[in-house]
């Protein structure tokens, strides 16, 4: 793997880190399988791209993306809790609705940001080089997001959030409106996914309506790989594992793409197959290891 490929993988890993932290919140903390992210990631990209094109500050566009994703997630939460639609289905409904909404926001299937200011500009101008700027900035951002989540999960609301995922009867009996917790948490998770989209669109220079396809699988793969490799005994450990999982996942893919076995090499179109294999491996290896050890 070349240095550029390595830094590119780090950049993606950190950018997708937000999404992965969001997926951890819904899948692991709340036990709410949420596919909305396939729509809210491009939503964040679309909102950010449109805002930058309209002359807003690129950093401000991240905030817009966060809010847009938050709203999208709240719709899923609302459909599931207040209208009683099965969570998985509710999230799929929001996801396909977002496809149309994203096209409306952008007015066309994709927007390029060529020659437009991005959040990377100030850092690139310091002369550290394009390929170093993005991983560094995204690394700082996603670490901050991790610390913020770590704090949030230890607040009274965070405890209620954890309890909502683990034992709804218990937390309801303690006077917590679980509907509200679910709506806010799914909102937060999708806000994070949208920030991922906004970061990706700014580093890749374009927002595309199809960039969200397979987001949830990649997010889940990262969470599971992280858990398998780094454990999840405490909340802090689990959050760190999720973020590191995102890096490992992107590095693995970069490694696979740079692999050459004689005539054969992987192409980007093989990524879905590779992802599926990676998830299967991450899910079965711990069981296999236990079997071998118990012998």
């Amino acid at each position, binding site marked *: 793997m070349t240095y550029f490929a390595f830094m590119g993988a780090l950049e993606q890993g950190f950018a997708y880190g937000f999404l992965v932290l969001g997926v951890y919140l819904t899948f692991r903390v709340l036990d709410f399988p949420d596919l909305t992210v396939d729509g809210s990631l491009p939503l964040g990209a679309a909102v950010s791209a449109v805002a930058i094109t309209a002359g807003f500050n690129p950093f401000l566009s991240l905030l817009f993306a966060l809010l847009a994703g938050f709203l999208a997630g709240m719709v899923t939460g609302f459909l599931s809790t207040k209208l009683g639609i099965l969570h998985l289905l509710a999230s799929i409904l929001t996801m396909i609705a977002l496809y149309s909404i994203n096209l409306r926001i952008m007015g066309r299937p994709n927007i390029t940001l060529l020659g437009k200011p991005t959040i990377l500009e100030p850092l690139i101008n310091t002369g550290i080089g394009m390929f170093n700027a993005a991983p560094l900035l995204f690394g700082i951002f996603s670490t901050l997001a991790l610390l913020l989540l770590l704090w949030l999960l230890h607040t*009274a*609301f965070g*405890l209620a959030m954890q*309890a909502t995922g683990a*034992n709804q009867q218990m*937390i*309801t*009996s*303690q006077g917590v*409106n679980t509907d509200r917790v679910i709506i806010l948490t799914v909102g937060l998770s999708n806000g994070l996914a949208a920030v991922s989209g906004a970061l990706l669109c700014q580093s890749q220079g374009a927002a595309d309506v199809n960039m969200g396809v397979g987001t949830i699988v990649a997010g889940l793969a990262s969470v599971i790989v992280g858990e398998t490799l780094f454990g999840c005994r405490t909340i802090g450990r689990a959050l760190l594992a999720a973020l590191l999982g995102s890096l490992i996942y992107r590095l693995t893919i970069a490694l696979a793409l740079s692999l050459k076995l004689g005539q054969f090499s992987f192409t980007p179109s093989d990524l879905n197959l590779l992802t599926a294999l990676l998830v299967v491996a991450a899910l079965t290896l711990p069981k296999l290891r236990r079997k071998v050890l118990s012998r």
Partner: protein
Amino acid sequence: MIEITDLVKTFHQGSVNEVLALSGISLQVRKGDFITVIGSNGAGKSTLLNCLAGSYPIDSGHILIEDQDVSRWPEYKRATQISRVFQDPLLGTCGPLSIEQNLALANRRGKYHGLKRGVQRSDRELFRNQLSQLNLELESRLKDSVGLLSGGQRQALTLLMATLVKPKILLLDEHTAALDPKTALQVLKLTQQLIDDQHLTTLMVTHNMRQALQLGNRLIMLHAGRVILDVSGEEKAAMTVEDLLEQFYKVRGEEFVSDRMLLV
């Protein structure tokens, strides 16, 4: 004071499986009453508790807690007035959270769950003191996850959590039924102690007639969704298990005979 008037609850309404679980129950619970609730399977004991707590919406009737009509309140809102302990020891506590985190949630029952730190440093002293009265040595294990505790320990913790913020009424739904006899006795003692200390108004469902007579100042017997016996004070104190069985006999007739062995 809790006033229950003409409470009706039907399950599977309009289908062939329709069951009238509560057929117009009325009950006045005085402040400080410790009422034991008995009745055969399907008499409506658990349904009554679930309707009070708001887990099941009621068909008609009214529930007043200190003159406030809570009949249409959602369950989480009623939790500001009511706390409960379930039969299943796993239901009342949150396994992945630590003991102190569970207590912190209970300490905020009915209050706003905002962005303040969940477990305040100043809370820990209170939690240790409260836990020490359980005599389970949990006060030194504040950070242990509740999932590590045994059923009896979790039930004791649930009881403590239910009374940490004094409820207007405490609902106990056969809360010792899933425990081994020795642990059940300990939890029962703790129940009595907590209720006495705080003068809690309590409804306790039990299958054990001896227990129902020993505990509390009042006893009601349910059958087919109605109150068929309501005794308190001296009258209750004078009652024996045989008297209760006789009552059962009267309303249930023949089918009772097969249950007799279970009940004694």
